[in-house]
């Protein structure tokens, strides 16, 4: 278990203020926040890579505040992977295995096992300069895991990958975690990444830890405006009636809005929908009219690049979000009739 008490770190003009955090053994913990919020600084402090001005860090009850990084048994995978270019893949993975501690056979066995687990056996003799982003990520992960660390720190591990590779590796990361059971702290600015991977999430902004909780706690009950602005306040709809449509689908009527969603159970009481998961159009969308509704714009709140619209559908006042430029192009005004399309994957059962 990792316990951070009143930690303060100062780097130039940036200050990470009084962080208090407890991360449980074997947990997949995600630190979520916008760029420059101090996410990486927390990782670096846990790894012992930056000086702590105030406070303390305990790892499994042991005070690690002033412990050098090499003694913490914490593996760190930086955003750009930092694979050593003068070593090939095998040598990179072997780097952390000290000759005195692990014999040759054990080293080879461990490298072979990790290479198999991460699907990089065919890359072992390759120079790291020729690897793709996804391959580099796997090699970097193998190198980190080879030392049998107690904690794994991942700094934006999927941010430099293309969408499909990132999506695939997201599932893989969770699989490795479940298989190895290692305490993992993952830093990201991507809400979907946090939602899919995390057991618990910490929201950080401008050096302040704003909220720590489970996915549901964070997404459905943001503790303040900062968190709610960052994750977006969801629309919570109460369902009056549910009917099973078969094939794992149900129709839930919420405030005279018949919403279709995948669900194996019998009854849904409430559903949550994030504003970003509702698309707005001024023309009637073609195709079957499932989860598509006609509504009236009641309010428009423009921000720098984004606009938030309140749209009346049935008895519900739905909050939606769209790029400001798109709203201006469509000349959407208060009182106008618009069509809303609900993203089926974005519908959450509460």
């Amino acid at each position: 278990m990792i316990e951070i008490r009143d930690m303060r770190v100062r780097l130039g003009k940036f200050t990470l203020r009084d962080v208090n955090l407890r991360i449980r053994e074997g947990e997949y913990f995600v630190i979520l926040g916008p760029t420059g919020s101090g996410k990486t600084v927390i990782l670096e402090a846990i790894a012992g890579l930056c000086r702590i001005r105030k406070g303390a860090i305990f790892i499994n009850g042991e005070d690690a505040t002033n412990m050098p990084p090499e003694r913490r048994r914490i593996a760190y995978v930086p955003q750009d992977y930092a694979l050593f270019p003068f070593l090939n893949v095998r040598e990179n993975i072997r780097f952390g295995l000290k000759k005195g501690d692990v014999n040759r056979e054990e080293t080879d066995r461990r490298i072979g096992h990790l290479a198999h687990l991460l699907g990089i056996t065919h890359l072992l003799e390759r120079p790291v300069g020729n690897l793709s982003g996804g391959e580099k990520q796997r090699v970097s992960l193998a190198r980190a895991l080879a030392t049998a660390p107690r904690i794994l720190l991942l700094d934006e591990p999927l941010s430099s990958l293309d969408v499909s590779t990132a999506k695939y590796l997201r599932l893989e990361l969770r699989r490795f975690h479940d298989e190895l059971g290692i305490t993992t702290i993952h830093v990201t600015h991507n809400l979907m990444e946090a939602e899919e991977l995390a057991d618990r999430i910490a929201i950080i902004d401008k050096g302040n830890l704003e909220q720590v909780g489970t996915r549901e706690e964070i997404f459905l009950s943001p503790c303040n405006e900062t968190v709610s602005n960052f994750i977006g306040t969801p629309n919570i709809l109460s369902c009056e009636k549910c009917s099973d449509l078969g094939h794992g689908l149900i129709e839930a009527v919420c405030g005279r809005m018949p919403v279709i969603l995948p669900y194996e159970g019998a009854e849904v009481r409430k559903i949550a929908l994030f504003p970003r998961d509702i698309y707005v159009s001024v023309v009637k969308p073609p195709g079957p009219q499932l989860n598509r509704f006609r509504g009236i714009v009641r309010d428009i709140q423009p921000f720098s690049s984004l606009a938030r619209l309140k749209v009346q559908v049935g008895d519900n006042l739905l909050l939606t979000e769209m790029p400001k430029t798109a709203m201006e192009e469509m000349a959407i005004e208060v009182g106008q009739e618009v069509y809303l399309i609900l993203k089926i994957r974005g519908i959450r059962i509460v």
Partner: protein
Amino acid sequence: MHSSRVYKGIRGEGVFRAATIGALALLCLFFVGILASLFTYTDWGTMAKTLFSREIFLAIRLSVTTATIATFFAVLIGIPAAYAISQTEFPGKSVVDTILDLPIVVSPVALGAALLVFFNNPVGMGIEKYFLRFVFEVPGIVLAQFTVVSALSVRLMKSTFDSIDPRYEQVGRTLGCSKVSVFFRVTLPLARNGLIASCILTWARAVGEFGATITLAGAMKPKTETLPVAIFLSLSTADIEKAIAVIITLVTIAACSLLVLRKIGKKGYPA
């Protein structure tokens, strides 16, 4: 209106391109012209005879040996010094940085004179008496070369260390390396090409060092006669053929060094 502006822009670009390439061509022509003029003063036979004379052989040997020793010491102290100035924050760092730049901008004759004065004070005289003689001796050549090139060596190596992403060292630390171990296992291999390039440039500069060498070690044939000193001595006795032969030797050494340097430059690690 719009098309005429575009045309003017294209014409302006052409003029700018011609002006910059013209300046480059002029400079190249200037250097090639100087070197080519050497061959108008002598013929191949005389030059070959002079080049293979014992005196020139001794001068080459002395220059290469002293430059190699000076480079060895410059690199030995330069690597940790460059690393410290590149990676460490300490009070008075800008002052130290300026002190290190001084030998690069101060005239080598002035540095040689300062060394000569140093060996005339009690500490210097003590070193001369009980440790090693430098004034008008071969070690003086090494010391003079070291004084001139060590700062250059530190400057070049510092830029190499500056270019290394600190993430590599950080990852090395989390993989179980101590600060010392990470320096040898991560930083030095990453800096390898840059360090080799620095060594070559330092060595080439040491071979060509004249001002500080002649001031501290003198110009005694053949005892302290390095290649640049040989040019000076030949010119002072109006032996133009010999001076030209030595100049060509020096230019060849410099050209070979730069060729090796370019080859190393192409071997950089992909980012």
